[in-house]
Every structure is written in structure tokens, then in C-alpha cells.
């Protein structure tokens, strides 16, 4: 038997316009946890998608147990006992857990001894037994749409186990989990390793690699930089290799000096379109020069708080006041002009108009006012000058400058454009929702420094993020939301990330 269970030799994969993998060679030993570290777009997921048969390499060979293989589809990969948990779970929402796991390999029975039909009863029993054996408790008959993200991930892991995968690929598995859930997942990965499985972990979080991985391959812009044993490599070294320069972990954060209250939310309740209370009786204040961060697991009402303050959703009871003025029932434009800036979660849907140019997008907050327009006629000279100014000030990179269509820009630069546009309003309150989701380290550093600079200027900042690291790094005050209620509000230096994590799970007293 070959020493290596998986060998990917001289793999090159091109997509129109980019080389996703450039002559990458990795060799993975049986029974190890092998991490792939790299920024977004470094080519980690593409490389693993080829191992899982989703794409075929343009050049290079894949060897399993020393034998050359060619995968045309994930079925071929599954036949070699390779399984993958994708970053975006591949689950059918209105199917049960068991139906999702057995899809395509259902146990069959003969109906009336004649017609082949799917035997769900047997499937449910098999899943129930499998989940107990690996400590991944699930109820096979629950529907996916009714269970939380962490359970969905268990379903994906069970799916691999059901298909008897020996090589398991995890694509950014911790991105959606709370600290406690991450601990649980890492312990599961550890027990899978003890069970003899080979694990490949795609991530950009160095701490996890340190905790669980044996070896780590670092990718940058499609190229393999190095493969290191994790035990002999520091987090700083990994980060430097990943980014290609010295990374500064400590953001220079000055001590906060709070002023008067800018935003005050009193007993606010918000209903969603199904008339269901998604935000329940929420009360908090944000002061001048303060970053107030709301932490919580996705879907607990945090986005709705931001939407309600910005005016995108109606407040069904309670009040919102900005700098002493009641904003509860005012229009979005009144709120914007009174000093609320909003960087929304859905940047492509709400933040920009994808098929407008960068120039027009940057003017979206100003186009109707002097000097951007007069007597209803737009002044495009003004647009252009303003756009060029912002492009330089916020380092927005695009193919053709101000006349680039936003659709063709990278996510990081789209976000820089939104942040620049909103900051330039010099608002009293700036709401950031998931400001760095999906961005690479460089863009994250850029956005974070802008957030801190605005705080130091004296803006009140409401930050809503699913990334606990981001909250711990930036916040002055943390509010933890669970199931539409804010369970705890405390100064950031009085709570550890474990404390926050416990509240995120709905535990009342930490």
C-alpha cells in the first residue's frame, strides 16, 4: 500500500480570466488531518472540488492509494470513498434528514412484492443507528428547514459516513458555528481521525489548524507556497505565508471615549412578513464614539434590528430615537438625512445597483441634491469628480475606474465602495451588518480600520456580525441576541468569547 492515500500532482485549473490552481502538488497520508490554508480566491475550494469530481483538472494527475484516477462527477469520487461537506450545504430543505442522507443510494424494497420502492423506514433506522455510533445525534424524520445550522452540518457529516467515505473534505466548516459548536465539531473530527479516516480541512482560520491539524498546506493566488507540520509552525508564520507579507494582528485601537447618546432603541418589536415577532422587546443605546456590536447565531433577529432602524422594516411597537428625535415612523430618506448610514448585509441586493457604473453607485446618496443635480437635471461632471475622489480615498480597485460596472468588480471592492459612500455622509450613526463577510484579509483590514476611524471621529456605530472574532476585536460594548431578544449587554472587556458564545446558544446565566 502506498504511503499516501491521496496524491494530487502538478494540478493546473483555469477559469475564464483566472488561473485557480497553478501547478499544485499535495500528498496526503492515511489517517491524518491535512489543512489547506489560504485567503478567499487562493484556490483551496477549487482544488478540493477537483478531488471531489466537481471539476476536472486541465493538467495534472490525481492518485488514490497510488493508483491514477479520473473523476468525471462526484459519483466517481464517491466510488473511491471520498466525501465532502461543502461550505454551502447541499441539502434539500423540505426533505427529512434521512431522505437527504440516503438521496441517490436509498435502501429499496418491493411494494406488493413487485414494484421497487424506497424503504424510508429502513433508512430512518439506519440513520438513527449511524448517528448514535458517531455521537452525532439527529432525529432522522425532522425536516432540514426546521433544524439549526449546526444540525445541518451533522447531516452532511452523516451523509459522508453513510456513503462509507474514508477521505473526508470539510470546506470552511466552522464559518457558521458558535465557539461551543466549533469545539464539538473539532472533537468529532478528532474521533473520525481515531477511526482511521483521512480528513482534509479547508479553512482560513489559523487557530483551528493549530488545534486539530497535523500538516498544513498554504496556498496563495493559486500557487502552493509551502507544506508545514503544524506543530513546528506559529500562527504568525502561517498568516505571513498566507497573505504574502507581514500581517499585523493587533488593530491599533485607541481607548474609546463615549459622548452623549445618539441612538436609543426602546422596547422595539419587529414582525416579519409572516407576522411573526422576529425582534422582541429590544432595548439598547449607542453613544457617540462607541462601537456597539450585536453578536448572535445567524437568523436570530439581528438583521431585522438593523433593517428596522434604517427604515427597511416597520416597527410594530416601541420607539427608535436618533439624537433625541423620534424616528419610529419616518421614511428611509428622512432617516438617512437625519444622519443614519447603512451598510447592509446583502451588499449586492441592497447595497449597490449591480448594473450601474461605480460612478453612479457612489452618488446614490447624493444624486438628488445640489450640487449633484439642479432643477431635476443630473450633473454628471460632479458625479465623475466625486467618484474619482472616493476611488482614491477608499482604494476601490476596478477594471476601468469610475465607469466600471459594479457587477464586474470583486466583492471586496464592492464593499469598499459601499463603505466609502456611506462614510462620506459623515453620519451620526453608521450601521454595519456583516461588513467583512466573504472578504479576504486585506479588504477586512481596510474595512476594520475605517470602522475604527469613524468611531474615533465621533460617530455612533452599530455593528452586527456573525464573526465572533470580528466582534471581539472591534466592539466597545457587546449585546448578545438569541431568538429575537437581547439576553445580555456588557462592556467588551468584561466578556470572553466563550461567555458570548454561551449567550448565543440561549443560556441565560453564563
Amino acid at each position, binding site marked *: 500500500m502506498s504511503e499516501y492515500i491521496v496524491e494530487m500532482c502538478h494540478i493546473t485549473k483555469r*477559469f475564464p480570466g483566472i488561473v485557480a490552481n497553478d501547478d499544485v502538488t499535495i500528498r496526503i497520508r492515511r489517517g491524518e488531518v491535512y489543512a489547506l490554508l489560504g485567503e478567499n480566491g487562493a484556490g483551496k475550494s477549487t482544488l478540493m472540488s477537483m478531488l471531489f469530481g*466537481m*471539476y476536472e483538472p486541465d493538467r495534472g494527475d490525481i492518485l488514490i492509494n497510488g493508483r491514477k484516477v479520473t473523476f468525471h*462527477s*462526484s*459519483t466517481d469520487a*464517491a466510488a473511491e470513498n471520498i466525501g*465532502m461537506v*461543502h461550505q*454551502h450545504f*447541499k*441539502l*434539500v*430543505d*423540505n*426533505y427529512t434528514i434521512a*431522505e*437527504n442522507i440516503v*438521496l*441517490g*443510494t*436509498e435502501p*429499496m424494497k418491493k*411494494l406488493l412484492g413487485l*414494484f*421497487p*420502492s*424506497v424503504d424510508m423506514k429502513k433508512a430512518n433506522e439506519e440513520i438513527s443507528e449511524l448517528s448514535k455510533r458517531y455521537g452525532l445525534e439527529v432525529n432522522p424524520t425532522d425536516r432540514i428547514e426546521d433544524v439549526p445550522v449546526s444540525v445541518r452540518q451533522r447531516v452532511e457529516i452523516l*451523509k459522508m459516513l453513510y456513503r462509507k467515505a474514508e477521505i473526508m473534505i470539510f470546506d470552511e466548516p466552522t464559518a457558521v458555528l458558535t465557539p461551543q459548536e466549533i469545539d464539538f465539531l473539532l472533537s468529532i473530527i478528532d474521533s473520525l481521525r481515531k477511526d482511521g479516516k483521512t480528513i482534509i480541512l479547508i479553512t482560513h482560520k489559523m487557530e483551528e489548524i493549530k488545534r486539530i491539524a497535523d500538516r498544513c498546506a498554504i496556498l496563495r493566488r493559486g500557487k502552493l507556497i509551502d507544506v508545514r507540520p503544524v506543530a513546528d509552525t506559529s500562527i504568525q508564520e502561517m498568516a505571513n505565508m498566507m497573505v504574502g507579507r507581514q500581517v499585523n494582528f493587533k488593530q491599533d485601537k485607541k481607548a474609546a471615549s463615549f459622548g452623549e447618546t445618539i441612538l436609543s432603541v426602546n422596547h422595539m418589536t419587529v414582525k416579519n412578513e409572516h407576522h411573526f415577532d422576529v425582534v422582541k422587546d429590544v432595548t439598547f443605546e449607542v453613544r457617540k464614539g462607541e462601537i456597539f456590536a450585536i453578536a448572535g447565531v445567524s437568523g436570530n433577529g439581528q438583521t431585522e434590528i438593523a433593517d428596522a432602524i434604517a427604515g427597511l422594516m416597520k416597527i410594530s411597537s416601541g420607539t427608535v430615537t436618533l439624537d433625541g428625535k423620534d424616528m419610529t415612523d419616518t421614511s428611509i430618506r428622512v432617516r438617512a438625512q437625519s444622519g443614519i448610514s447603512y451598510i447592509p448585509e446583502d451588499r449586492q441586493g441592497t447595497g449597490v445597483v449591480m448594473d450601474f457604473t461605480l460612478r453612479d453607485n457612489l452618488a446614490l446618496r447624493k444624486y438628488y441634491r445640489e450640487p449633484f443635480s439642479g432643477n431635476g437635471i443630473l450633473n454628471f461632471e460632479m458625479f465623475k469628480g466625486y467618484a474619482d475622489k472616493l476611488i482614491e480615498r477608499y482604494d476601490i480597485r476596478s477594471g476601468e475606474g469610475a465607469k466600471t460596472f459594479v457587477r464586474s468588480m470583486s466583492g471586496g471592492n464592492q464593499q469598499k465602495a459601499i463603505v466609502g459612500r456611506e462614510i462620506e455622509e459623515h453620519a451620526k450613526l453608521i450601521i454595519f451588518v456583516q461588513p467583512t463577510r466573504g472578504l479576504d484579509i486585506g479588504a477586512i483590514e481596510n474595512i476594520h480600520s475605517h470602522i475604527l476611524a469613524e468611531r474615533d471621529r465621533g460617530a455612533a456605530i452599530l455593528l452586527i456580525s456573525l464573526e465572533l472574532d470580528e466582534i471581539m476585536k472591534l466592539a466597545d460594548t457587546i449585546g448578545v441576541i438569541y431568538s429575537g431578544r437581547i439576553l445580555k449587554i456588557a462592556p467588551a472587556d468584561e466578556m470572553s468569547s466563550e461567555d458570548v458564545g454561551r449567550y448565543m446558544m440561549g443560556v441565560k446565566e453564563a
Partner: protein
Amino acid sequence: MTKVFTDGLSFAMPLLIMAVGAIYSEKSGVTNLAIEGFQGFGAFIGALLAVLLMNVMGEGSQAVIYLAMLGAAVGGGVYACLHALLCIKFRANQVISGVVVNILAVALTTFFTSAANTAINKTLSNKLILGVSKRFTVPVLSKIPAVGGFFTNMYPFELIIIVLVIFFWYLMYRTRFGMMLRACGENPQAVDAAGGDVEKTRWIAVIISGALSGIGGICFAYSLLANFSPSIYLGYGYLAIAAMIFGNWNINTTALVCLIFGLAKSGGYQLCIAMKLPSNYSDLFLMLPYVLTMLLLIFFSKKNHPPKAAGEPWDKGKR
């Protein structure tokens, strides 16, 4: 009263088989407004076959009807490939494709009907005259008061449709193929990851949709008109789609909705006769199913769960 049930069922059954066709297509993730066109083109092929066969087998032959149904299924299935090609292979907008396929069906069948008449019958006509389908009455069951009407004067095709619907129900909800198909309409990525072939599944689903619509079309041609002409495009394809929507894309509930539509139509017509209204009022009563449609839309459309991925082209390489 008996007649209400008799006519109701003979209207509901072709509607149901078309609705089942629509469900197959949409559950696999291909929005299908082309049912109307499928049924028309399928019915045309079936009718053409019937006209040709009647020359050989004689005017009164009942076997011609079954062969015409088979022909309509094949014709509808082949014509559906156009919709599949546009939506699946070329990833066109599925709504536009459906509308285009419908318009094209009207144009093609109108042209070919007169061309066929010129060639075969040496007459200028836009109708293909079909034979008359025999009807039968089930003993015992037909004696039940009122509901016995369901079993009185039945067309043989009604039985065939019932068998087909049961078969396609089983295929959809009890087999591996059916599970794959429904998953394709909800999350094709999941199917792909599980080793299924999304494009192939959708192709099969759209072809099934065309074949079943063709059968529905030829049955309407036999039961309502006894001929094929462009007047077959009466909007019943859209009514089948409406039935699918109220049936929440579920074959069982859709069957119930089709029956209600059928009874509303025949009931309205009989009511018009019973009230001794002039015949031009009957058109007013024939609107009943559509008025019912609008009312049901208001009450039920909120609770519906259409297949999540319907209307979205599947692109495997999408990143």
C-alpha cells in the same frame, strides 16, 4: 344531476393528466407555461394519426382512439424537447420559452392541419374530423344516487388516465427516480453532490410533461369537440397549471382541485340549462372555473410552496 357528475369527470380527467405533467416539469425545476402548447401539438399528432388510420381501419374503429392517444403522447413528448432544449441546454428564461412554445404550437398546428386536409381529404378545412368515442356505464356503481353519475357514460380514456395518474404518483413519491426529481426542483446542487444527473432528470421530466399533456389534449379533442382544430387552444393548459398551483404541486390535492374545476364547469352548464336561459348565457356560466380560479388564488396562494429551484437554469460550473 347525474349529468353534472358525468361531464364533470370527463372534463376533470384530461385536465388532471395535464396538471400531473405540469407537476413533473416544475418539481424537477423547470417552470412550465408550455402545457397549452404541448397539449395542442400532441393532440394534433394524435388527430393526424387517427385520420390516417381511419382510412385504413374504418371510421368506427375504437382501436384508432387508443393509437391516437399513443400518438399524442409521442407528439407531445417530442414537442416538449423544444422547451427542454431552450430551458435546460441553452438556459433560456423558462417563462419566455413557455410562451414562445405555446405561440409556435398554435401556428404550426394551424398550418399543418390545413396542409394535411389538402393532402389527405382534398378539402380546405382547418379541422381534422375524429371519430366518436364509445362510452360505457359501470354496472352497480352507476346506480348510486347522484355520485353514480361518475360511473355513467364514461369514456374509456378516463380509465386509462386514472391508471396513468396512479402510476405517475407512484413514480414521483415512491421511487428513487421520483426522489431525485423532486430534489432537482428544490436544490439541484444537492442532487449533483449526491451523484445525480440534474440535466438528464429534468429532460425526462419535461418530456413526461409533454407526453401527458398530449394525452390530455387528444382526450379533450374527443370528448369536447370530436375534431381537432385550433380551437383546442381554449386555455385548458393554463387551467391545468392553475390546478397545479392550488394543488400545491402535489398530485393528490391537484386531483381534488381538477375534480372541483370539472364539477364547477359541468354544474354551471347544467344550471344554465335548468334555468332555461338563452344559450349565449352559457358562456357566462362556463366562466365559473376561471372565477373560481381567481377566488382560490386570493385565499390559497399565500400558503403555497412552489419548488424552490423552479425557473433557475442549472449551471454545474457556476461558482
